[in-house]
């Protein structure tokens, strides 16, 4: 990654960079087609625009006040006059998934953009409130670090959720919050850094880009003179990471079978669709409370039952898709070797695993000093990352790519 002021970038790529406002989102882009210098032959360049279609996959249901749960007002997601929800503490989630808190000697990287300016304080509050051991947290910015942008874009909640969910499941693991400088190509830079430096054994990515818009995103490339249209250019980093023994998790998305895009065929998220990533879908989780109460946040509980996170009638989403777990068939990746035999699939199918994601059965998270109830497959992915960190801690070696036999598809 390199950094320069705009005038130097304009000079090298022989273009001008202009600012644009697209429905309130301010971004820059080239005003004329840039000229790629000859010296950059054979490499992939990104960053001439910071426009992005990558979204964090979290849904903030509301915040917890003295009066109980106050529904989120922005965006306005609620129909009707009734509102009720369940929300879980770390101990309740540990009980539900039968987790023995562990994670020692394992490092989990969560990759997010912008970050949360209050992340350290939020984790302190989270640990005190829920009687967890102090987190071993490292914040690793990749490039420019402006966590204030996290507040404006919602990535602050995403970052806090990811770190707190991993810490919930693996309280003794070392967590690295790898913070990209923007929610576009810089996220892939962060993946590149984790893989190239072998920074972690487990990686959680609670964000994604619908495959259906990859062709319009700029994320496709020429490789060794051959065009690879609509092919996500960064997949080779997941292959490198898999060879290194890194377990990658990615959220399958929160907008159902069409992934928020206008299509009749269906759609899935990248990087969840990568064959070298374990895609995490969503469930609605219900507990069997044995002592205390969920309302008072002091329940002892174990697993009740789980259903696939599907549409809730009181939940409205002003788009072409419903609010439910993402999943389906990839249009980019053929079925990997581990799926062909068992699913008789032609294309990569996802998700591979699932965990709690319904915001109406969400987790209590500290964000900017406030308790919020958050769900989405953004919750499911770090929950899985934490559970695998526990397993690796006990086993004493990394598990690597989970998908092939004998772990998942067998």
């Amino acid at each position: 990654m390199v950094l320069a002021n705009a005038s130097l970038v304009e000079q090298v790529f022989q273009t001008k960079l202009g600012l644009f406002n697209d429905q309130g989102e301010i971004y820059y882009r080239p005003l004329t087609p840039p000229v790629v210098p000859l010296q950059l032959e054979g490499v992939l360049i990104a960053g001439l625009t910071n426009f992005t279609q990558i979204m964090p996959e979290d849904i903030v249901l509301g915040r917890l006040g003295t009066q109980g749960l106050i529904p989120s007002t922005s965006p306005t997601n609620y129909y009707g006059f009734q509102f009720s929800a369940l929300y879980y503490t770390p101990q309740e989630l540990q009980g539900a998934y039968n987790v023995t808190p562990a994670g020692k000697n394992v490092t989990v990287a969560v990759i997010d953009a912008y970050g949360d300016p209050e992340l350290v304080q939020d984790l302190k509050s989270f640990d005190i409130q829920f009687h967890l051991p102090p987190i071993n947290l490292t914040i690793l910015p990749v490039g420019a670090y402006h966590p204030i942008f996290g507040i404006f874009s919602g990535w602050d909640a995403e970052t806090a959720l990811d770190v707190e969910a991993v810490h919930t499941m693996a309280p003794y693991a070392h967590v690295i919050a790898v913070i990209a400088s923007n929610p576009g190509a810089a996220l892939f830079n962060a993946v590149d850094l984790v893989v190239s430096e072998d920074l972690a054994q487990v990686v959680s990515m609670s964000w994604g880009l619908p495959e259906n818009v990859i062709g319009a995103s700029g994320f496709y490339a020429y490789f060794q003179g051959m065009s690879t249209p609509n092919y996500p250019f960064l997949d080779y980093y997941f292959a490198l990471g898999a060879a290194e023994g890194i377990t990658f998790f990615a959220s399958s998305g929160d907008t159902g079978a069409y992934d928020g895009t206008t299509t009749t065929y269906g759609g899935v998220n990248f990087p969840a669709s990568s064959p070298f990533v374990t895609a995490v879908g969503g469930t609605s989780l219900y507990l069997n409370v044995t002592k205390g109460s969920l309302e008072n946040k002091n329940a002892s509980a174990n697993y009740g039952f789980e259903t696939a996170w599907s549409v809730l009638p009181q939940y409205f989403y002003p788009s072409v898709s419903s609010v439910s777990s993402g999943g389906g068939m990839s249009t980019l990746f053929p079925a990997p070797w581990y799926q062909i035999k068992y699913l008789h699939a032609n294309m990569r199918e996802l998700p591979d695993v699932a965990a709690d994601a319904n915001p109406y059965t969400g987790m209590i998270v500290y964000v900017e000093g406030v308790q919020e109830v958050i769900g989405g497959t953004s919750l499911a992915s770090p929950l899985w990352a934490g559970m695998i960190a526990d397993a690796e801690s006990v086993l004493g070696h990394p598990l690597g790519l989970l998908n092939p036999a004998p772990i998942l598809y067998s």
Partner: protein
Amino acid sequence: MKVSLIVIGLVIMSSIPVIQSTAYAQYYGPQFQGISQGSLPESAGVCISVFIPPKDMNYLLLLAQEVGNHQIKLLNRTQLISLFGNVEEEANLVHYFKSKGFHVVYRVLSH
């Protein structure tokens, strides 16, 4: 006759695009929308990401599959760089960007 041949030649040649000596690739960007807000301030910082593809993609996919199947041991960072890292390419790129006045935020293959 000669004049007409020259004219025909010029007409045919005019349809051939001019090849720029400094450009080798076409730029593909996102499909943009939005209302112009003016120029990006000249002093604004712009991060450019440079990704160098691995040296042997087919071998990488094979190894990743074999590691995933527990047929071979995990590869360490040194082995990965040795097999797939294009160290010379990275050094050339770092030299190029530095010579142009860019600040190199990080490099991964050689420190």
